[in-house]
């Protein structure tokens, strides 16, 4: 399931919806990304996430489908917020549920790695010097590239 939303999300409720009542599930891996108050040695007072409505959902659905093709998943979830967020706020949640923990771990990491290089979101950080668009990181490309070799 894909959710692109401005409002916050409740990790416990989402996990309950993901795995509740399905007794084939042996492991659930979850990643939650949070807004930090510091990046590249600069203080961040807030961050605004811009996105491309329509394309975002399309890309996230493709990424999720790819994970479902690669791993034996009972369920999966991607939630990504947009709009203005303060330090400590939740940005993104990725969760995968599988009979086996290796599949749950690998697929969860795959989803967040690919999302970071494919889903059309852009971060504008509010710093003491004003707003700064975050640069894409080569390490994120490398992380996504890891998974390309598997296909």
């Amino acid at each position, binding site marked *: 399931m894909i959710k692109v939303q401005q409002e916050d999300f409740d990790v416990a409720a989402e996990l309950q919806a993901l795995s509740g009542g399905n007794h084939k599930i042996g492991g659930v891996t979850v990643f939650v*990304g949070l807004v930090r108050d510091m990046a590249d040695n600069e203080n961040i007072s807030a961050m605004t*996430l*811009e*996105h*491309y409505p*329509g*394309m975002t959902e*399309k*890309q996230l659905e493709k990424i999720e489908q790819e994970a479902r093709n690669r791993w034996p998943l009972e369920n999966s979830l991607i939630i*990504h917020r947009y709009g203005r967020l303060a330090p400590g706020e939740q*940005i*993104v949640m990725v969760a995968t549920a599988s009979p086996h923990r290796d599949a749950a771990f690998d697929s969860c990491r795959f989803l*967040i790695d690919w*999302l*970071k*290089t*494919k*889903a*059309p*979101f*852009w*971060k*504008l950080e509010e710093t003491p010097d004003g707003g700064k*668009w*975050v*640069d*894409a*990181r080569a390490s*994120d490309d490398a992380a996504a590239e890891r998974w390309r070799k598997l296909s």
Partner: protein
Amino acid sequence: MKLLYFAWLKTKTGCAQETLARPDGVDNVQALLTWQQGRGAGFADGFADLTALRVAVNQEYADPSHPVGDDDEVAFFPPVTGG
């Protein structure tokens, strides 16, 4: 065609979204990028370094050789930084 701009490209061009007739002879992404570079100061600046830009046609990532047509939605943006 419908053109969209995101993040600092929106700031530099001063444009979030526009609808216009496809320029003469512009039939793929590369031609459209070249055309953008000749539209004036803001666009010239935003499209100066094409390696810093990504293009999507109808919400799918597209290479320079990808065709563009009259009814297409074409988006221009820097590499994504979500997650």
